[in-house]
């Protein structure tokens, strides 16, 4: 059955001079960017660059201490419902795999949660695990459950915070295939990683962060062939950045 393409309703998302301080520490400063509908945006950078904080600010889990975030829609509820996020360590509710997906659908007010949950699990190839306790699944399976949970919500934009950080190559491949399928359905992808190979495979556009600053915001091809900044060049060459 052909999937319905998700039309843009709340994108683009515009961030202007975004900053975040935790106590006396500046985690992120002066980040300006636009997330356009349908794009695959990879936020790249070494550990501690501020990637996860940027994702949480864009998704609304943190409030910026400076700057503004503006969605194209003024309808707050529509904006919240148009997003989903998958975390590096997904929280599995202490219930079955199917019930984990159903919970997200119930909270979002879906009518036929059972069928929608089954369909989402089918897309990530986990129908056979539907009745297993989610917490007893492997790390790779749990991440796929988290993707199914997010996919079931049919988000316009999906934020992914290092979803393959602790997974083996086979599990990473399964996750990347699922992300590609979600994107093919029209969902805009915003994903953090510090894995250059993954960025090459998935990115249309690279946002390179270093020490809380957006050092580079370029199409992926340009970023990997002709990086503008010294930091990005060093990172691509595999040199240690701190």
């Amino acid at each position: 059955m052909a999937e319905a393409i998700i039309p843009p309703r709340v994108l683009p998302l515009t961030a202007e001079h975004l900053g975040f301080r935790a106590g006396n520490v500046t985690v992120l400063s002066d980040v300006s960017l636009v997330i356009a509908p349908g794009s695959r945006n990879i936020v790249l950078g070494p550990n501690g660059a501020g990637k996860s904080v940027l994702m949480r600010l864009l998704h609304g889990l943190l409030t910026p201490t400076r700057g503004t975030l503006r969605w194209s829609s003024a309808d707050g509820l529509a904006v919240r419902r148009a997003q989903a996020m998958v975390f590096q360590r997904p929280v599995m509710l202490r219930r079955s795999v199917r019930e984990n997906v159903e919970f997200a659908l119930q909270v979002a007010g879906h009518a036929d949660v059972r069928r929608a949950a089954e369909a989402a699990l089918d897309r990530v190839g986990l129908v056979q695990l539907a009745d297993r306790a989610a917490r007893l699944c492997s790390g790779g399976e749990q991440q796929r459950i988290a993707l199914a949970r997010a996919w079931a919500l049919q988000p316009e934009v999906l934020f992914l915070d290092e979803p393959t950080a602790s997974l083996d190559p086979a599990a990473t491949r399964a996750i990347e295939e699922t992300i590609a399928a979600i994107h093919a359905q029209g969902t805009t992808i915003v994903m953090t990683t510090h894995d250059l190979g993954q960025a090459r495979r998935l990115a249309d556009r690279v946002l390179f962060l270093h020490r809380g600053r957006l050092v580079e915001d370029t199409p992926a091809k340009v970023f990997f062939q002709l990086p503008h900044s010294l930091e990005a060049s060093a990172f691509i060459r595999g040199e240690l950045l701190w």
Partner: protein
Amino acid sequence: MQACRYTARMQEIPQSLALALGLLSSLDGTLLSIAGLSMRVSGVAVVAASLLALPFGAWLALARFPGRQGVIALLNGMMGLPPVVVGLLIYLLLSRAGPLGALGILFTPAAMMVAQAVLIFPIIAALARQVIEDAWGEYREQLVSFNATRSQCMRALLWDMRFTLSTAVLAGFGRAIAEVGAVMIVGGNIDGVTRVMTTAIALETSKGDLPLALALGMVLITMVVLINLAAQLIKSAAMKQHG
């Protein structure tokens, strides 16, 4: 002289053990009635207190308001409420001249259930608050990301923490069934009506029948241990199944 009294007391322990076994094996009617009433009073008190204390604890874990730390400190402090004081307050409320005197439940098992529920509410609520607050640290971002409301978050956390929360409920049950001061005051220890294990033990001790008092004590401890053991087995099996 002192040594003789000590020896005599020590001999009462095996006697009491034999008596306790005899009472249990003969399925003594009076014992069964007293034990049954103890279970019924404490069971109802635990269920009633849990129905209120678990949601209250979860609400307090998630809510942010001025004076919250004071409420938490008060709740924690109330875990050590003196049973006789609670009993006295419930007595004053339920006595004929009291505001709830019209209910006519003083010196009935219902009054004992109310007293025990009041006594264990802070224990269950305070422990639930701590459990849910710890879990909230882990779940917060995921549930907020789902756009879950406060009430949906509370329900999800209460359900997910059910195995840990069962320990809080068992702590409340332990306190309720072992309590004597409050039920003595509001129940009156009336034979066949409001006499429970603890008040029977107190009565037999005051009458000087120490072997019977000890035997009843052993039966009470056995009951509590068996209930906790059963709960632990169920909890372990459920955790294996649900992770």
